[in-house]
């Protein structure tokens, strides 16, 4: 009972922080600050993963998102001198359209899943939860059987390799061109 009470408290605490930081990310006028707020959102997401019992995923989230993606975004901001491009206030029409689209999505999605009876597994006849999710994830990722994920895993590694090559080729061409024009 204590653990459930703690879970409730932590859920609402992190949810408030996460939504506030997400709003700050999209509303901030300064793009570097938006990157820092985004980092905060991703850290609270890692906390959510721990609350959901996915410890390995929380670690991956911190390593890849916070340590990799946000740093890349900061590099992108600096390489494109975006910090000098202050976001002017978007026009009223633009804001209005965006707000209507976002809230329509929220209303529609909330309506759909509140009308759906989600077949939760906690109704007494459920099989036990996985004890060691990290071990199970590793086993499933490298399992060659019908329920294994070894082929998607290999495809992802190929995708990352091609992204590595493609990214460096695209960026290098522009750097070479910038050298020529100097």
């Amino acid at each position, binding site marked *: 009972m204590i653990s459930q009470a703690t879970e409730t408290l932590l859920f609402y605490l992190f949810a408030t922080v996460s939504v506030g930081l997400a709003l700050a*990310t999209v509303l901030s006028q300064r793009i570097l600050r938006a990157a820092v707020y985004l980092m905060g959102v991703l850290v609270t997401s890692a906390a959510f993963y721990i609350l959901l019992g996915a410890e390995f995923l929380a670690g991956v*989230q911190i390593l890849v998102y916070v340590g990799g993606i946000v740093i890349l975004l900061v*590099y992108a901001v600096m390489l494109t001198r975006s910090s000098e*491009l202050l976001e002017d206030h978007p026009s009223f029409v633009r804001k209005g359209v965006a707000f209507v689209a976002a809230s329509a999505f929220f209303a529609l999605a*909330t309506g759909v899943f509140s009308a759906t009876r*989600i077949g939760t*597994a906690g109704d007494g006849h459920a099989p036990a939860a996985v004890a060691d999710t990290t071990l199970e994830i590793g086993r499933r990722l490298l399992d060659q059987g019908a329920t294994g994920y070894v082929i998607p895993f290999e495809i992802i590694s190929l995708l990352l390799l091609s*992204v590595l090559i493609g990214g460096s080729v695209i960026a290098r061409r522009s750097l070479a061109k*910038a050298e020529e024009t100097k």
Partner: protein
Amino acid sequence: MIEQLATLAPGPFHWLSLTVLLFAIGIYGILTRRNAVGILMAVELALNSGAMNFVVFNKYVAPSAVDGQIMAIFVIAIAAAEVVVGMAIFVTLFGHRRTVDVTRMDQITDAAGTN
């Protein structure tokens, strides 16, 4: 007090409301930002909430398997790939146009200096 809090423990509805709200904030950011890097950040916000949805369903619908968590790992890996390509494209665009303002990207040809 503690009993009351324990009965209020978040269920799938609460978790899904949270992820949908984060996704909607991401949509708002995608539609209002002018800076391409800002749009990329809003896309990351939306992707992150999508990945969290997989984990929520993993916990509440199929706790005896880890398929949802594996899908979330794939989403994170593809998000990393997307950011790398996006950053390379923005750096190239900046080299050609000296700006990453998406409202001024209305030409296909390389017309540096004309706008």
